[in-house]
């Protein structure tokens, strides 16, 4: 426990100070990793803890991204438009999609969540005032508590602060009474119901929490890139988050961050040498599933005897 807090603190300090020693491109990579890490962690809450494998988590990433893009462009660039509104709309979307999706499980849940996210894709692809296939570009970064996030340093701290806060919040949630109920549902949903848990309510709450955080990740991503396109909703966005979670180690929040790091580093390095970086990624994924089904974290635990 103590060393974990220490390791976390060291990691935070390293990430905060990274821009002092690294150039613009590595810093951008790090920010991308953190944003995707937030997204992947929110998916891990569903997958790894509640046992709900969603293939439509991009819906909330995209909703957060689009709402932030619209609001920041039209209603002023501040915390309400950049964060609160995107989170609220993503939560609402998760409530509606979750209400229908949690009624089924397994493959049907995967298919239903996928279908919902593809509906958003189709919608944004066609609606003119959402920019159709070009999306929304030239989104300004917000001012936060008098801090101009347009500057590189401020924006870096902002992304880091978000990643740290999300990690801590999710870490607390998975250890809370609610988190334990989710694990029970994951292990044996029918028995949870038989002893008296209104299982669907817990699943819906987990879905809404995960969706809200995914929405924040999407809002952050829009501010990072300065634009958003219908691509955010496409199944590949969900699939990549799924890969990050599995590569990092399902059911370990830190794993989702590590998985995001590995994925994005692979993507950026290998794609600078060859167009076929997806091939290598696929091979990496297969190797993990075959030889380290517990992901990076699982492999570390086995190797150096780390305990959860």
């Amino acid at each position, binding site marked *: 426990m103590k060393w974990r807090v220490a390791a976390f603190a060291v990691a935070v300090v390293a990430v905060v100070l990274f821009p002092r020693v690294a150039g613009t491109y590595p810093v951008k990579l790090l920010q991308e990793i953190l944003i995707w890490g937030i997204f992947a962690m929110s998916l891990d809450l569903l997958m790894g803890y509640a046992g709900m494998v969603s293939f439509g988590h991009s819906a909330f990433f995209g909703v957060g991204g689009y709402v932030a893009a619209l609001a920041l462009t039209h209603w002023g660039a501040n915390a309400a438009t950049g964060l609160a509104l995107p989170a609220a709309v993503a939560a609402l979307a998760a409530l509606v999609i979750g209400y229908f999706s949690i009624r089924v499980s397994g493959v049907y849940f995967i298919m239903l969540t996928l279908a919902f996210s593809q509906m958003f894709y189709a919608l944004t692809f066609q609606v003119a005032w959402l920019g159709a296939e070009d999306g929304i570009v030239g989104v300004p970064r917000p001012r936060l508590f008098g801090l101009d996030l347009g500057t590189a340093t401020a924006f870096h701290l902002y992304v880091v602060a978000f990643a740290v806060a999300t990690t801590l919040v999710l870490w607390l949630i998975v250890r809370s009474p609610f988190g334990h109920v989710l694990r*029970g549902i994951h292990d044996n949903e029918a*028995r949870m119901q038989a002893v008296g848990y209104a299982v669907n309510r817990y699943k819906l709450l987990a879905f809404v929490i995960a969706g809200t955080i995914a929405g924040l990740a999407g809002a952050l991503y829009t501010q990072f890139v300065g634009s958003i396109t219908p691509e955010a909703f496409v199944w590949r966005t969900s699939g990549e988050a799924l890969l990050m979670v599995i590569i990092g180690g399902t059911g370990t929040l830190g794993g989702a961050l590590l998985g995001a790091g590995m994925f994005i580093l692979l993507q950026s390095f290998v794609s600078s040498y060859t167009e076929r970086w997806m091939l290598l990624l696929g091979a990496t994924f297969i190797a993990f599933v075959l030889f380290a089904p517990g992901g990076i974290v699982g492999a570390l635990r086995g190797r150096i005897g780390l305990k959860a």
Partner: protein
Amino acid sequence: MTALLQLDGLTRYFGALGAVNGVTLAVERQERRAIIGPNGAGKTTLFNLVTGHLAPSGGRILFDGRSITGLPPHRVARQGISRSFQRTNLFPRLTVRENLRLAAAADGRGSYRLFGSVARLAEPLARAHEVAEAVGLALRLDDEAARLSYGEQRQLEVGVALATRPQLLMLDEPTAGMSPEETQRMTRLLAALPRAVTMLIIEHDMDVVFSLADRITVLHYGEVLVDGAPDAVRADARVYEVYLGTADGA
């Protein structure tokens, strides 16, 4: 005073087959009632109807005077009815403590808390320890359920049902698949449970039935064949018939 559990003409069809056919029976408070009958008599189906795992085709279920007919399983459980399953139905990757603690916390109070540790909800944890003691698993609290022996898993199965503090405890063949020694241990354990807990138990082992039950209901083809005190049931010729067939083999 009304019976704790009252079934009125309870019926369930699977297609044209009447698995439970107009069953009427009353279980009094603090009673220990055994339900016996040959395979396919509708015993487990009857349990599934009471606990909301199946919807009845007809009839009513009253618990403590109120209708619970058609309620979903979690609502039935919250009324004070808890059950164990014929096939072990635990949380295999969680510890014995956590299996019991989750069941004890199923009243929902505190279970929606997103922050704070489970250790701070003292009541369910204390209940888990108390039940572990009662079902003979006090020394295995930190072991994963999947690592327990079969007999211990059956004990935990009863423990999970008991941890919810039920008024009515329904046990579906608690000794199924157990060795004679394990069966004896389970029988002693069940006999030692507080009398305040009303018990409805499906069992095939007649030694277990006669050492536990105050009253016995014999089901046959989904209907109540005999309902009476153990001695009366033991002496009833019809019970021998359904178990052994008639003397002329018809």
